[in-house]
């Protein structure tokens, strides 16, 4: 239990040593270390396991616990080294895709959409704090769940995950995010532009123009920061030339 808790703590800083060569490999090795402690009486096995644990790996950081648990279980069960390395490679893609869909395209925008709506409705700092707390609780619970599933199923972890709640929840999270971000847009426009003279007209124009530009550039994404900075430079030139 203490080993699992230490592994969970280390998973919180999984990406601190991210590189283009091994990506999360070093972070995975550091997180696995407490789980490999039962190998201490067998120095050769421990050394080989440590060597494998620092190889290339990349997945979603919050689901990497499943890989850490499964790889540690496989090492403790004395599975052949080649099979363990194959498992490592096989887990990268699915855990990355599921996690990106669930968190980066789902829960993160959903949480921020909800926080933006709450702020525009007068929720203030308390609403932001609640959203952050709720998100972090969920994030730790998902990582802990992954670690437990990995340790319980070892080489069969992919099957266990495919049968779990995760593949069904990931697309739903994106739907929720779409609704919440959509609802936040008009509320935020009115809230931010209140006081510029004509809030309703300005809000409608800004949102309609942004929606049109956004829709026209779905296939060829527009760099919004570059566009904004360019428009700001033109505005400054126009104002200063008129002065």
């Amino acid at each position: 239990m203490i080993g699992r808790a230490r592994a969970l703590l280390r998973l919180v800083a999984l990406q601190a040593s991210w590189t283009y060569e091994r990506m999360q490999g070093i972070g995975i090795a550091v997180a696995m270390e407490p789980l490999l402690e039962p190998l201490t009486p067998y120095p050769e096995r421990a050394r080989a396991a440590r060597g494998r644990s620092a190889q290339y790996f990349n997945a979603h950081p919050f689901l990497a616990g499943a890989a850490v648990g499964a790889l540690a279980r496989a090492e403790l069960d004395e599975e052949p080294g080649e099979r363990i390395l194959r498992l490592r490679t096989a887990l990268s893609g699915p855990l990355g895709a599921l996690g990106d869909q669930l968190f980066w395209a789902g829960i993160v925008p959903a949480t921020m959409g909800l926080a933006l709506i709450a702020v525009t409705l007068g929720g203030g700092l308390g609403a932001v704090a609640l959203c952050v707390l709720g998100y972090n609780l969920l994030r730790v619970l998902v990582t802990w769940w992954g670690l437990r599933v990995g340790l319980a199923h070892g080489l069969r972890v992919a099957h266990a995950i495919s049968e779990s709640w995760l593949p069904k929840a990931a697309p739903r999270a994106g739907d929720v995010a779409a609704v919440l971000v959509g609802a936040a847009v008009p509320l935020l426009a009115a809230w931010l532009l209140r006081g510029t003279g004509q809030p309703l007209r300005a809000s409608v124009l800004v949102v309609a123009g942004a929606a049109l530009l956004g829709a026209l550039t779905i296939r060829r994404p527009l760099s919004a920061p570059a566009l904004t900075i360019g428009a700001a430079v033109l505005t400054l030139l126009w104002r200063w030339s008129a002065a």
Partner: protein
Amino acid sequence: MSDPTLAALMLWAIVVGLDLASVLQGLLNRPLVAGAVAGVILGDPGAGLRIGAALELFALDVLPVGASRYPDYGAATVAAVVMAAHEPWVTALGPAVLLGVMLAQIGSGSIVVHRRVTAWALRRTAAALDRGEPGVATRVHVAGIIADLLRSGALAALGIGLATWLARVPWLDLATARALTIVAVAGGFVAAIGGALRRAGTARRIAWFAGGMALGVLGLALR
């Protein structure tokens, strides 16, 4: 700005810099959160929320997947709030958000530098790592955290220094500052709406997004 306030802002900007990728990833780096806390530190929570909300629109367009290069809005938001705090928000919002957007792009470059520094440490220890020598992975990992701490500190110092200097220079008239506010907010909505449509991918998800917008408009009408 007093020394304790400056120290608290620097510390917060470093914390949010680490939160981006190295430690936690617990939304502290999101502009709305980073801005809200910076506003509290500066005694102007309203400015923090407004600047944070405006920059959040840009951050909603970012998908930090795989090995992608993404902007760092944490310290950038703290700097933007420093520039706008205790100023009339209608004129301060635009210039402050534009500063935040530019600093976030510099932050993006600093992430690449951090990854290269860690890669250099990794290459020096690769043989020992492959032999499974104890403690080597932990040393590389801690070096990565320290490098990110220094990256975040440098970004925070640059951003807060620039914001403090810009806040002192009266270089914009009222109408120009107001126009920049509309430009900055409009740019934010292009980012948020464009990002949401691209993330949606399917007609069904775009319909969810449109439904959400209709709900928001209904909410506005009912208020």
